[in-house]
């Protein structure tokens, strides 16, 4: 008796949206994703779905690894950037004879970077006027330059449309920004309200239907690493180089702790907002760092006195940041893998 092989299927096409306040690290995250994939720590790989997207990724990666530079804050992105995160996942499938068996299934997730200006998330009306160009402008400098930060109203709609159509969302929360701006709740709140208005009906429960990966970015930054280390969340025994990690089980708690460190903080509201808008079952927290911790080339081991992989420079042309050492992305693939697995319908 022969059993027929698995029927060939078109790879599942899910959609993931990358979302976060300006400067929260979205572009760097993307570039680091490519680095992480190339460093071969998982079975997944990333490619552009068109030339522009492939070129963009190549450029960004080169900049990150070779030039040790972060993506420029002001940058015109090519339109229609879209990447495919492709891999295999295991699915349990019921046979014609009522048996179940485990199959490996090719999965491709579309990752769109609709890198919207910060003002848009905030619903800044000054920025909601007509834009001169059909291109999406990558412009993160919120508030400071309302003059050239004009955006097409339809662009905000496009972003919301995009997020609505996604199965999973990656939300980048930048604790360092929270220290100085305390405005992450504004970005979050505005977008979540609109999402709810458009997508709540699709949900089986009282939450938004999306899966949400909350990535606490810039783990290497002293504002993030220090409290994590001090409060005992960081474990540096799991990686060869001694890089600190936070067990997934503790990441949500650390997120709350980071948000609660200042009572006045909008992050407290953000924490609550996430828990009330997204199902706890469909939400996960990740401590991430796109560039990773600094690794002293002489010692080849993580030094707790020097976790920070960034050097802040200044000069007559203003402030910039540079990457100090090699790039060792932390928790950039994991959120995608989790979303790829979690968002698919169970067979």
């Amino acid at each position: 008796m022969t059993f027929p092989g698995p029927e060939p299927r078109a790879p599942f096409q899910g959609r993931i949206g990358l979302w976060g306040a300006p400067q929260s690290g979205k572009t760097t995250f993307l570039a680091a994703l490519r680095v992480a994939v190339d460093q071969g720590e998982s079975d997944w790989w990333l490619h552009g779905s068109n030339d522009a997207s492939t070129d963009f990724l190549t450029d960004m990666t080169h900049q990150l690894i070779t030039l040790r530079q972060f993506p420029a804050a002001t940058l015109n992105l090519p339109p229609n950037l879209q990447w495919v995160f492709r891999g295999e996942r295991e699915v349990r499938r019921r046979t014609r004879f009522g048996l179940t068996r485990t199959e490996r299934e090719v999965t491709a997730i579309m990752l769109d970077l609709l890198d919207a200006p910060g003002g848009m998330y905030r619903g800044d009306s000054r920025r909601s006027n007509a834009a001169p160009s059909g291109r999406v402008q990558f412009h993160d400098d919120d508030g400071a330059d309302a003059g050239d930060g004009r955006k097409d109203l339809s662009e905000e709609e496009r972003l919301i449309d995009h997020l609505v159509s996604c199965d999973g969302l990656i939300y980048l929360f930048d604790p360092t920004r929270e220290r100085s701006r305390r405005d992450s709740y504004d970005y979050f709140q505005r977008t979540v309200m609109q999402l709810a208005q458009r997508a709540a009906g699709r949900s089986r429960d009282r939450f938004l239907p999306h899966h949400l990966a909350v990535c606490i970015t810039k783990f290497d930054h002293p504002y993030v690493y220090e409290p994590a280390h001090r409060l005992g969340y960081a474990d540096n025994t799991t990686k060869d180089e001694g890089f600190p990690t936070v067990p997934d089980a503790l990441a949500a708690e650390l997120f709350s702790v980071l948000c609660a460190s200042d009572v006045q903080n909008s992050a407290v509201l953000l924490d609550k907002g996430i828990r009330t808008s997204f199902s706890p079952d469909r939400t996960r927290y990740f401590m991430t760092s796109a560039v990773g911790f600094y690794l002293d080339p002489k010692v080849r081991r993580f030094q707790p006195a020097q976790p920070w992989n960034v050097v802040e420079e200044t000069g007559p042309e203003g402030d910039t940041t540079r990457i100090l050492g090699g790039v060792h992305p932390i928790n950039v693939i994991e959120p995608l893998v989790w979303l790829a697995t979690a968002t698919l319908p169970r067979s």
Partner: protein
Amino acid sequence: MRTGSPACPVCRLPIGRHERCACGWTLRTSWTVGEGNRSAFAAELASAQLSHDVRAAVRAGCDRDTIAPLLRGEPTRADWDQAEEHVAARTEPLQPVLTTAFASLAAGQVLALVEIGPQDITITRAAAADPDPGGPPAERRSQPWREVLPMLAADAEHLRYQLAGGLVGVDRAEISVRLAGWAEGLLAAFELPGDSVLVAVNRRPGWTLPVELIDHLRRCHPRLRAAADAGEVAPVLTRVLAEQPLHTSYGLLTAEVGRDGTIRLAPRPLFAQGDRARKTATVTVRCPPGGTHNDSVLAVVTGTRRLVGAWSVRLRPGVPVPVQAELAAPGLVRLISPAGARPDRRSLAQLEALAPERIDVRSSPVEIICLVELNGPQDAARRRRKLLAELFDLLAAELTVPAGIALLGYADHYAAGAADEHVVHGRWLGSPAEAQEALDALPDAASRWNRNAAPLEDALQEVARRCTQRPARGSRILVVVAGRPPHPAAVADVPRPAQRCPLGWDWTMYARRLDTVGIGVRLAVLDEPPGPQENPWRTLGLRVVAPLGAATASKLGEAMALVSPNPVRLPFPLADSSQE
């Protein structure tokens, strides 16, 4: 005419026991003149008399026609010509005689030069190596011949004729008596000490009365040296004096500041006793406190504190200034360097009165360690260096104690993203001028720099290391001119986080070491006033933390207690002790 004693019929000298007169006339023979020879004798005498008188006239340079009536006879042209040939007299140059006389002169002894001329006799009184600058010594007294010998003619030409030997009609014996008396009474008459060294110079060699006077002088003063020299005396005297060795030392007047700030003026040796003209000597001095905008007085004085010469000059502060002088002559010093010195005509008393009794200074040596952040906003980076340049200028000008200045500039770790471990430049302890040079040689400010920290810890590490290696020669002072705090030993969760020092150095450790190496006085000058929590500056600016905009070199100097806010002007240079 007096005929008290017999005289030579030719020259009128009294006849002594000699057979022949000094003029050559035979006064006595063993045989008497016979009647037959009487006319021949008369002719011979007349001829001798005429030739004697003509020679006197020629010696005296008299006009032939004017003098003719005074001659005994009428000379022919041949007589004049013959006389011209016979008047040449033996001379004895003055200079060697004077030189020997000066050489024999003991300290304090007076040299009296008797100058016998055609109108008068002049006595010049010269001490050995007179220290007063200028030409020949001033003490000259003249006496006209007619005062010595009132019987001589009043008419100058007639007087000359008489001095030269034309003495018919005057009491020749009386003259001799008076001349002898004058010679005998010389010292008393001119108030000369008994042990005076006498030199006589006959300015009219061959003239009868000057020659005779010298004879009298020799007789009365056996150690007298005589010369017969028609030349001017003053230049010879100047020349000889100039060649004399110094009888006293000469020095440059400098100020010495005592431990309590008291000022003592003391000459620094330039020329020693025995030194002679054309010798040069150098003394190294320093510009005194307050000298930046004031002249200093360079005064050369004798060991006995008499002023030889003084000059005013603006001295360059901060560096040893060589003062070079040449001994032109005893009492005459020429300043070779520094250039631009102007003669100062004030008296020594006036000059000395300019010096204060004391100045307010610290007395122990100091080491001033300056650390400067090289990079940062263009304007601030420039002003930091300018402040130090002004401080070095000020210290060079105002410091009265030996000071060593160290200057360390530090650039940036993490230049263009990469960690640079060699960021400290500069020079350890040196003079203010050397610190200034080191300042000029520091690298230019970079165009970009680390945002929240600069490698001050590396500079502090260098300070701690150097200061531990060698104990302090005096008190130590730290001056930090900066914009950013040091890198931390570990990256920390602070409002303005910074990367840690790539060498892992901990500024707090070196700051603690400042206490052990004796750096108690610490000043910090910051681009911006520090926040209340910025504790590096509480430690590193232990005495003063000042904003760069308000800091001046003089305020720093005062804060270091090195420079008085109201410096008392000290017009004399300080001896440069570092050269000894």
